[in-house]
C-alpha cells in the first residue's frame, strides 16, 4: 500500500533581517496587510518597531504603584502596631512617633514597589519561558532582527513575499 503524501503545513514564517530599516519596512507592510499575530525579535529595544506595532502602555506601572502603596501601608502598620503591642516609652517620645516611622514606611515602599515591578515584568512578558519560542534564532540576540508572521497557507506565502521584498536575508518556516 502506498504511503499517503505528506502534507506540508506552514503555520508561519520567520524573516531574518540584517538591517533595521528592512525589518521596519517589512513590519510596516505586514501590519498594513492586517497580520495581527506578529512577533518581532530584536537584539536591542527599538522605538521604530514600537511605533509600527502601536502597543498599549505596559501595565507594569500598575504593579509598581500597587506594590509601593502596599509596602508603605505595611511599613507603617508594622511599626505602629508593634509599638502599640507593648507601649514602652523610649526617649520621652510618643508611643506612635510618626517621623521615625516614615523611614520604615519609606524603605518598605521601595522594597515592595521594586519586587512588585519585577513580578509585573515577569507576568506581562510571560517569563520564565521553558519552551523554545516559535521562530527564535540565536542570531536575534546578536546582530539580526526577526519577524514572525502566522496565518493560513495563503497568508504565510504572502508574508514570505513581503519579507523578501523588504530585504529579508532569509525567510524560514517556523
Amino acid at each position, binding site marked *: 500500500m502506498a504511503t499517503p503524501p505528506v502534507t506540508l503545513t506552514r503555520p508561519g514564517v520567520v524573516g531574518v533581517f540584517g538591517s533595521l530599516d528592512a525589518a521596519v519596512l517589512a513590519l510596516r507592510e505586514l501590519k498594513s496587510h492586517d497580520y495581527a499575530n506578529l512577533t518581532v525579535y530584536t537584539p536591542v*529595544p527599538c522605538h521604530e518597531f514600537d511605533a509600527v506595532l502601536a502597543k498599549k502602555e*505596559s501595565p507594569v506601572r500598575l504593579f509598581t504603584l500597587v506594590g509601593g502603596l502596599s509596602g508603605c501601608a505595611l511599613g507603617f502598620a508594622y511599626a505602629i502596631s508593634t509599638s502599640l503591642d507593648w507601649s514602652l516609652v523610649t526617649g520621652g517620645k510618643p508611643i506612635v*512617633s510618626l517621623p521615625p516611622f516614615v523611614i520604615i514606611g519609606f*524603605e518598605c515602599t*521601595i522594597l515592595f514597589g521594586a*519586587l512588585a515591578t519585577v513580578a509585573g515584568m515577569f507576568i506581562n512578558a510571560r*517569563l520564565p519561558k521553558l519552551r523554545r519560542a516559535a521562530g527564535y534564532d540565536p542570531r536575534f540576540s546578536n546582530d539580526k532582527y526577526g519577524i514572525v508572521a502566522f496565518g493560513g497557507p495563503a497568508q504565510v506565502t504572502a508574508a514570505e513575499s513581503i519579507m523578501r521584498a523588504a530585504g529579508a536575508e532569509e525567510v524560514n518556516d517556523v
Partner: protein
Amino acid sequence: MAAAAAPAPAMPHGAPAAQPTYADVTRDIIRTIEPPGRGWFLAMAGILSGLAFGAFCWARQLRWGMGVTGYTPPIFWGTYITTFVFWVGIAHSGTLISAILFLFRSGWRSAVYRAAEAMTVFAVMTAGLFPVLHLGRAWFAYWVFPYPNIRGLWSNFKSPLVWDVFAISTYLTVSATFLFMGLIPDIAAVRDQAVGWRRKVYGLLSFGWRNSDREWQHFMRMYLYLAALSTPLVLSVHSVVSWDFAMGIVPGWHATIFAPYFVAGAIYSGCGMVITILVPLRKAFQLERYVQVRHFENLAKLCLLTSSIVTYAYITEYFVAWYSGNPIERATFYNRAFGDYWWATWTMITCNAFMPQLLWFKKIRTSIPTLFVISIFINIGMWFERFVIIVSSLAHEFEPWQWAYYRPNWIELGIILGSFCWFSMWFMLFIKFFPSMAIAEIKESLPPPGTKRAGGGH
C-alpha cells in the same frame, strides 16, 4: 562558548578607529567570560590568602572576645564601624551610575554601569559583615531582625540602628534585583553563543528570554521604574547610615548636615572605586574600545563635583562648630585638626579636598594612570573621613577623664584586609561568569545595522 576571536586593537586615547558592530560587541564582551587564564588564578590565590587571614583574625576574635581588638574605653566604635560606613559608601555610585544617570539619559553610563552595579552589590555584602564582626557575639546576629523577644517586646523603631537594618537590607535586595534584571538580556546573548552545559545553565538563568517585542516592552518599563525607585533609595540609605551618628549627642556627630554630607561623600568614594576597578578590568579584558577615556573623564568630573560638596561640608562643619559658641563642639573640632588624630584628619583633607583639585585639568582627567592613582587616594581619604568622624569624636567627648586614644591592632587590620579580599573575590567570580559590560545597552548606543540613524538608545 563562542570561538575566541582576536581582541579588538587598542586605540590611542581609547578612541575607536571604527565603530564596533553589534556582532563585535557580542564577541568582545562574551570573550571576557571565557575560561580564566593564569593571571586570574594567581590573583584569586592572593585574594583567597588575604581572605583566609581575615577569617583567622575573626576566629581569634570569636575565641577570645573583643578584647583582642584595640578597643580602648570609651572608644567602642572603631575600625569595624568605620569600614562598615566605608563599604556602604562605596556601594552608592553603582546605583548613581545605573539609576540616576539612566533617568538623566546620560549615554556614557552604558559602558561602565554593569561593573558599578556589581560593585554595589558586593560592597553592600561586604558592609553587611561588619555589624556582625562588631557584635562580638556573632551568633546573636539574628537579634538585629525586627521580631519580638520572649516577653513580646518588639524592636524600637525610634532607634536609628533599626532604620539601618531596614535601609541596608532593602538596598541589598533592590540593588541585587536591579543588577540581575539588567543582566537577563545579556545572559540570553551569552546562552545563544554558548554550547553544552553552559548553554543550559545560562538558558535557565536567562529565564528563557527571547528578545521579543513583548519582552522588551515590559522590560524597559520595569527598568525605568526600578531606576525611579532606586534613586530615592540610594539617597535614603546613606542618610540613614549618617543618622546612626547624627541622632547621638556625641560632639562632632550631632549635626543636621550629616545626611547630605554623607551622601555626597558616598558618591565621591563610589566613583573613586569605580575608577579603581575599571582601570585593571579594561586592561585585563582589552576593552579599550568600549571603556574609553571619555568615560573616565566623566567619572573624574563626578569625583570633582562630589569632592567639592564634601569640601564644602568640611568647611561648614568647622564653621558651625565655631558659630555655635558651644565650647565642647569647638574643642572637638580643634582636637580633630590639631589633637591626637591630626594625622587622620589631614590625610582625609588632603585626599578628599586638595587632591581632587587636580581634576580641574583636562590633561589629568584624561590620563588613566594618574586617575588610577588619584582614585586610590580617594579610597584612602574616604576611609579616613569615617575614621575621623567616628573615632576622633568618641575619643574626645564631654568629660576630660574619658578622653582616650585608640589605634586599631593587627586583628582589626587583618579583618579589613579580609573584607577587601571578600569583595574582590565576588567581583573576580562575577566577571568570569557574567558579562561585566552591558551587551544590549552598548549596542543601543551604536548605530543599528542597515540604517542611517545614529545610536543613542533609551
